[in-house]
Each structure stands twice: as C-alpha cells, then as structure tokens.
C-alpha cells in the first residue's frame, strides 16, 4: 500500500461543504414540501435556511467549477470518448459491484491522480456536476424570487414546470445521498475513502 495525493484541498473543502449543504437542502426541502406531514421545523425557517444554504452551494459550485477550469485536474472529469471503451469499463465495474465484490475480487479500477473516477463514477459525476447541479441551482434561484424571474419562468414553460424539474432533481439527490456514502465505504476498508476525502491521500495497493 502506498499513499497517493488525489484530492487537492479546494476539492476537499468543496466536497464537505457540498455534502453538508446537500443534507441540509434535502432535509429542509422535505420539510418545506411536506409540512403538516413532518413538522420538525416550521415552514418559514425551513424556507429561509433552504434559500441561504442554496446560495452557499451556488457559490461553492462556482468555486469547484473555477478550480477545475484553471487546474489540470479537470482531466478527471473529461469523458471517455470511445463508447466501446466506456461501455466495457462500465460493464466491468458493474460486474464488480454486482458479483465480484461478493467473491472478494479486487476492484477493477485503480485510482491514479488523473484517473480517480471509475467509468461509472465518471459518467455519474459528469451528469451530476455539469447537468443536475446547475439545473438545481438555476431552478432554485428562479423559485427563490418568482416575480423577479417571471419572464425566465414563463420562457421555461411556467412555474409548475420549473418547480417540477427542481423536485425531480431533488428526488434524484434524495436517493443518491444514501448510495453515495455506501459506495464510498467500499474501499479496501470501509473508512478508506472517507479518510482520503479528509487528508487528500488515497491508499493505493502496490503493483
């Protein structure tokens, strides 16, 4: 085993702000949408926290975006352009999670500085970070002040369209928030990837 520095400080800071922010956003989002059914916090404070944390996450997203834009680490997000290669790698990864992991087989993906994501992660994070998070930020801002952004909302198809998109992405994240830490626990020890996201160093098997 040797240590490999794969998570620079800005990425780790972004990640933990994002993680905490997402938990708060999902919790307050559920509270806002289901007041009467769940009454942990009353409606207005839930809305205020949701709005405030939303803006923190938007700033955090831009921090993440600018870091990768001006860093060579952006390569971790570059897509595999060969569909055949991407499919093969994805299938191999799926096979590992669905079968190999139970038989004690090693993870077919090997973390390196510019290749920290496996094929499934790579695709997921491209969609999450470049599509879903921007959509969620954008629709969230529109819903934050409906009258101010009325023309954009009308252009998007109306308040219900914007809200439904916001809720659909929220539903995805509400499910994702459970799967993500579970997958993170599938390192060589359950805590290996969590520690790596704190220290920046992944423990990689010697070849």
């Amino acid at each position, binding site marked *: 085993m040797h240590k490999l520095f794969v998570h620079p400080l800005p990425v780790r800071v972004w990640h933990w702000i994002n993680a905490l922010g997402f938990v708060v956003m999902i919790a307050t989002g559920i509270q*806002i*949408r*289901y*007041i*009467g*059914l769940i009454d942990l916090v*009353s*409606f*207005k404070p839930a*809305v*205020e926290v949701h*709005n405030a944390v939303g803006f923190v996450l938007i700033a955090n997203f831009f921090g993440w975006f600018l870091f990768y834009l001006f860093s060579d680490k952006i*390569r971790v997000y570059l897509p595999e352009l060969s569909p055949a*290669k991407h499919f*093969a*790698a994805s299938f*191999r990864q799926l096979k590992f*999670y669905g079968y190999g*992991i*139970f*038989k*004690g*087989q*090693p*993870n*077919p*993906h*090997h973390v*390196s*500085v*510019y*290749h920290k994501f496996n094929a499934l992660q790579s695709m997921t994070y491209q969609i999450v970070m470049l599509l879903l998070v921007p959509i969620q930020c954008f629709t969230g801002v529109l819903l*934050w*002040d*409906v*009258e*101010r952004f009325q023309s954009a909302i*009308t252009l998007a*198809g*109306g*308040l*219900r*369209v914007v*809200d*439904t998109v916001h*809720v*659909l992405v*929220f*539903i*995805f994240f*509400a*499910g*994702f*928030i*459970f*799967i993500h830490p*579970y997958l993170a626990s599938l390192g*060589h020890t359950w805590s290996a990837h969590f520690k790596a996201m704190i220290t920046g160093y992944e423990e990689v*098997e010697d*070849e």
Partner: protein
Amino acid sequence: MISLVSKRANVAAAAVATLRLATRAMLVGAALALLLPPSGLASAADGALSRDDQTCLACHGQPGMEKDMAEGEKLSLQIKGKAFAASVHNAIGCSACHADIDLAKHPAADKKKQTLREFSIAKVAVCRQCHEDKSKLYEESIHAALLREGNPMAPLCSDCHAPHAVLAKAAASGPIAEVPCRKCHGAVFKAYAQSVHGLARAKDSNGGAPICADCHRAHDVTAAASGNHIKEACLACHFNALQLHKSWLPNAAHHFEAVSCPACHAPMAPRRVDLKLYDSSARERVAEKSGVPRFESRAMQADSKGQGLDALALQSLLKEFNHDNGDTILRGRLEVDGGPEAHMLAAKGKAIKDCKTCHREGAAPFQKVTISIVGPDGRPLRHGAQQDVLQGPTSIDSVRGFYAIGGTRIKLLDILLVLALASGIAVPVGHLSLKWLFRKYPRQSSVPSAQENSDSASDKNNS
C-alpha cells in the same frame, strides 16, 4: 395638472349646462311671478327657498301628496322643504329639473308612466344635463351594463342620490349606515360594517377609513372580481404594503400576484382558487363576447357529469379556447369565495401569517376550484372544477402558472420520492446483506487489468 385642467373643463361644462337650465328656470319663474304677489323673493344662496320654489312647495310640501302610476304603484310627490332648502339643488330650484311642467296645465292629466322604475329611468336624462361627466362614468359601469341588460335592480341616479335632499360630499362624510350601496348590497355592507374599515369609519367618518366608493369607485364601478383595480385601491392607501411584506414573507411579490389581499386579511372568509382564462399574447383575460356565449356551453360540454371539470376535461376546455386563440392559458389566483366575505377584513394583527394555512396537503383554500372568464357585463362567469386539476400530472401543462408548495403538489412526484428514498436505503442494505452472506470469500489483492495498466501508465506519462 391634466386632471386639474379636466376638472376645470368639467366645471365649465356643468356651469354652461346649469346656465341653460337656469334660463329655463327663469322662464318658468317669470310665468310663476305673474301668478304670485311680488313680495318675499328669497335668495336660494342663503339656504332659504326661492319664492318660486316656495310656490311649488305650497302644494308639494303637503304630506301624503302622491300620484298613481299606470300599474298601480304610487309616486310620492311630497318634497320636504327643509331638506330641499339644505340640498345643493336648492341653488337651481325646482324648475331646473322639472322644466317639462307646463304651468298652464299643471297639475296635468298627462300620460301616466307605467311604473316608478320607468319614471326614474326617464329622469336619468335630466340628471345628465348637468352631470355629464358623472353620467359618462356611469355608462361605463357594471350598473349601467345591468341596466342595458334589462336588470330591474340596476341602480339609477335617484336610487343612490335623493334628488331633493342631495348634499355635497354626503357619501364621503356621512354615517356609514346612510351609504346608498347598502340598499342592494346588504350582505356586503353587513360584512363591511364589522370590518376593520367599517368600524374605523363608524368611529370617525373623517378618519380616512374607506367606504364603498373609495375602493369600488362611485359612478364607474366595475365588477370587483375582474381586473386589478381593487388591489390597486388597497395599495393606494397601503402603499408600503409590499415592502412590509417583503420583510417577513418569502416571495412576497409573487404572493401579491397570486393571492388576493382579503385571502389573508379576511381570516374568517372561505377561500377558493380561481383559474382565469388568460390570453397571453393580448395580455388580458379572455372575455365572453356579447351574444356569442362560448364559455358556459363549452364548460358544460366538457363537464358532462356536472361534477365540476376534472383534469382531462379542463385540458379539453383549454384546447377549445386555444383553437380560437393559440395563447390561452390559465392564471390562478387564491381569493375569497364570495363578495360579502371579501369585505370581512380584520385588523392587521389578525391576518393569516401561518404559512401552513396554504402550504400543506389538503389545505382548505385549495379545496374549491373555479374556472372563469370575463362575462359580457364585466362580471366573471365561473364553472366549478375538481380539486385534482391542481394536483394531477396534467397540471404541469394546464395550470402551469399556479403552484403553492405543499398545498398543490403533484401526487405522482410524492410516489417518485418514496421510491427514490426506498431505493436509496434498500440498495445499500441489500448490497451489504449480500456481502455479509458471502463473507467467507476472502478479499483478493488487486491484479490490474491490461486496460487499467494502460490508463495508469498514461496518467503517469501525463504527470
């Protein structure tokens, strides 16, 4: 400035008309003077009756003086001299409005008017001679529209203004119980009298609390449920209302658009959602053309069971209106259910401030839904809709502009959320359980594949 000029023009026009009538009055007066002794010519300006008018009142001041109408009603001909002397019309005298009286034949056995109503309608033209400006405003009003429709209750000049006792600015400063509107709008007046405005007005009629005409306008009164003028009337006095709401209410500006003022400020009133057909290209509400009734027949056709339009029926109704005009949408607004209820305005501290009132499942304000169009007389025509039009998946399209978090949420999305949460929990638990079941297999060390090797090598080369 413009309004000052126009007021002056109106005053000038009224003066000319008054002069014209005064000339006629002089002629009648001159004729009367020939019949009467030359003493006691009193001046109307000092609040006393002119001698001509005293002559009229010598008979018309007698109690019980009345005339039979053709259909048996009795028209009172008694004029209370004191009230007339104090009225603004004392200045022009009896003959100004009753120039049709031929003294040679008075009292005339003229052709009887059929009814009191017919008599009052005929007298509208007399008022118009001096009050042309007010008459024009009246012509644009819902009251005049009702009169044109032949509504026997539509108010005429004399229904609101007692012509022989009319005082300057009486409506603006008199006791609330004397406001003429209450004669027809009794239920509304009752609600108003108990409202924060009515109570303040009763306490101090000059304190600035509004009475009917302050919000609804006096002569050009239009249907309250059509247009924005009532909201504008609220904001004309409560001009900093939006700023005050912004200090505590999220999305305050949108609440001002989507929720009517009394929906929160009349806390005891029942509420409903009115989905208004709106022409988004013309930027105005869709109005029923006179003589071409489309709305009710289409709504009845779509609502064949008569239980209110369901989500699909609403879509088909919208489609029909879109066939006429491709940009018809529904604009929703939360408002109080009924005119009297809209006047039950409470003191500021009692207004609804609890978000849960609307933003929770099954909230009362969303239990009643109507679809509306502006009728030919300016009043809305409504048809009931089922509550699911706000909560079904089709609402994304048909009610795209109206949404209240929690209160009108789409049920299908709730199911998706439950599935996502269940999957989010079930996948890790299931996977972990399988791992535990297969725990006898030891973890093998990594043997990189050729592919991974090449990736790693490539990374190393790049670094």
